[in-house]
């Protein structure tokens, strides 16, 4: 499955990390939309319908968890794959993210290769009618 033309939403309040993630994803061939807080992330998700969202957890206005809940609670946004990318790495944080419906939880710092591989895995399976979350 090619990444061509697939839109990925990246949301992080740390601009350095946001640039890094965007750059990595563009190089991997994805279209990238960026948001610097949770509110903006929800707006972009509604207006541009990305295939996948990479969300930081600790963001102003809305946390990654809240954005995730918003997406999962909206019929039209429910299919967007979500990767939580966070420096909060305690088991409780991870468990909370997965319970809220995240497809994956990656810890910061992350390896670029790892992130891209996870996105491709999720979008690849998302193209076929397999159930989400394996």
């Amino acid at each position, binding site marked *: 499955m090619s990444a061509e033309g697939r839109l990925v939403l990246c949301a992080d309040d*740390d601009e350095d990390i946001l640039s890094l993630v965007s*750059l990595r994803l563009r190089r991997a061939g994805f279209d990238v939309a960026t948001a610097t807080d949770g509110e903006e992330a929800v707006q972009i998700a509604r207006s541009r319908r990305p295939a996948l969202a990479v969300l930081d957890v*600790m963001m102003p206005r809305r946390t990654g968890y809240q954005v995730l809940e918003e997406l999962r609670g909206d019929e039209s946004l429910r299919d967007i794959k979500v990767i939580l990318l966070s*420096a909060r790495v*305690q088991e409780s944080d991870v468990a909370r993210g997965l319970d809220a419906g995240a497809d994956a939880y990656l810890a*910061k*710092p992350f390896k670029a290769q790892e992130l891209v591989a996870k996105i491709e895995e999720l979008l690849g399976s998302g193209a076929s009618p397999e159930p989400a979350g394996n």
Partner: protein
Amino acid sequence: MTTPTISERAGPGLSGRLPMSNATTAFIAAGALAIGLYFLLPPDGQSVFYVVIGASSVAAIFVGSARNLPRAERLPWQLFGLGLAGQVAGDAIFAVYEVSLDREPPSPSVADVFYLAGYPLLAIGVLLILRRLGGQTSRTAILDTAIIFSGVALVQWVFFIDPYNHIRFGTEGARLVAMGYPAMDVLLLVALAQLLVGPGGRAVAYRLLLASVALWVVADEIYGLNFDSYQGGDWIDALWLGSYVVWAAAALEPSMAHIAEADRRRLPRLTTARLTLLAAASFTAPLTLLIERAAHHRAHAFVIALGGAALAALVLLRLAGLVHAVERAGLAERVARREAEQAQQLLAYQNQQLLEIDRQKDEFVSSISHELRTPLTSIAGYVELLLEEEQDTGKRGHLAIVERNADRLLALVSDLLFAARLQYGRLELERSPVDLQTLVRQAMDSARPRAQAASVVLGVETVDVPKIQGEPAKLAQLLDNLISNAIKFTPRDGRVDVRLAARDTMIRIEVSDTGIGIPDEERERLFERFFRAQAALERQIQGTGLGLYISKAIVEAHGGRIGVDGAPGEGTTFVVELPVA
């Protein structure tokens, strides 16, 4: 001769189990023989021998009290001695009259003065012992004594004293003296009643004392009822003589030293015996009336009414005291309950505070983790990016150094946070079946570059082992910690060997090195938080002192144990055992 142990001496409850000492038994036996002999003697001999038995007993009382008691505690027994000496003096005067003049002394005579003077001394002696026993507030003790006194006095007056008013006496003096004896017996009866219900009671000496007072009073009362027919040498003499002998035996008995030590179990309570006694005293008035009616005597209406009224008043006072005591106890209980409730509330509040502090600590650790990892993410991420793009070997080397140090910093942050969370005792595992053989091989693979850099040979020896239930990431961290440590502490051209084996229900992992070894004195502290070996400090081997602390926590969370083997200079082997189940 039994030798009482210290514990037996400790209290009357125990000393009461002591058998009577052999000396006391011998004394009583000799006394009984002497009393037997008394009845075989002719009248003159009887008079003299009576005095001899009495005088011997008085002497024995003084000897016994001097031998068994410190000077300050002898007073009650000295009073007994003096009181009985008064009796003996009276007996002696009788003996002089009978032997030399062949007749009884006139009535009243000097003998009566001695006899009667002795009674208060005996009664005071008993009351002193009872007072030392304590066990009651002085108010209730006085009230109880007053109640018993009233009852005894009433009965004594009606049945033993007043009858003398209806008998012809040579002189009024003789009548008064005759009435004096039952009057004095009131004192001894009160003393006897108090001894019966007193809080002491188990020491042999206490029982002997009680018996001697009882013998004396019984003899007096029988005499009082039959004084017309009494003659010297009558069987009643056996009771008086017996009282002398037993009284002396009580003084000679070593347990008399503990006679004033209360039996704690009986101390503060209104015992059944005491209650019975008080009830009996209270009922003397109506009972006396009934008995007089039954015997068709003229009722002592005035005396009975007076006695009944006095008893009623005293019982009321005693009741008031009890009610007060109950109220005080109730008040004390309410206060105690309120204090307990307050303490409980405080405890609940503090508990809540602690939970809150715990939650804040958890949140703090989580935040710190976030704050430290976020900049590290940028550093590591951009260095990774640069390393991919940079062609210049020199610059690549520099970037590799930045990358390595960023990795180290990240590992340090992770270890610190791990240790901080262990402090709160929350290492929760996400268990799944783990193939340790695979984990060991992976750990070896990732350690190989470091081993090569340090010129250390890595050896591995594994067999197929059953899977265990564990958290793969934590077990990988454990293996990485142990292997990294071994490499760090092994000089160039040394070896690090990892062995994996199954033994019964345990899987054993050994990580051994040919390094500098661990001194005995450090072995104990090796797994402590922040502990660093002296060698590590001297050689500036990097580390936080957290690796083994974390390793131990991981092993224990998996239900296993970790230990260390090897002597200084001969390398070190860390042994981990993990249960299969």
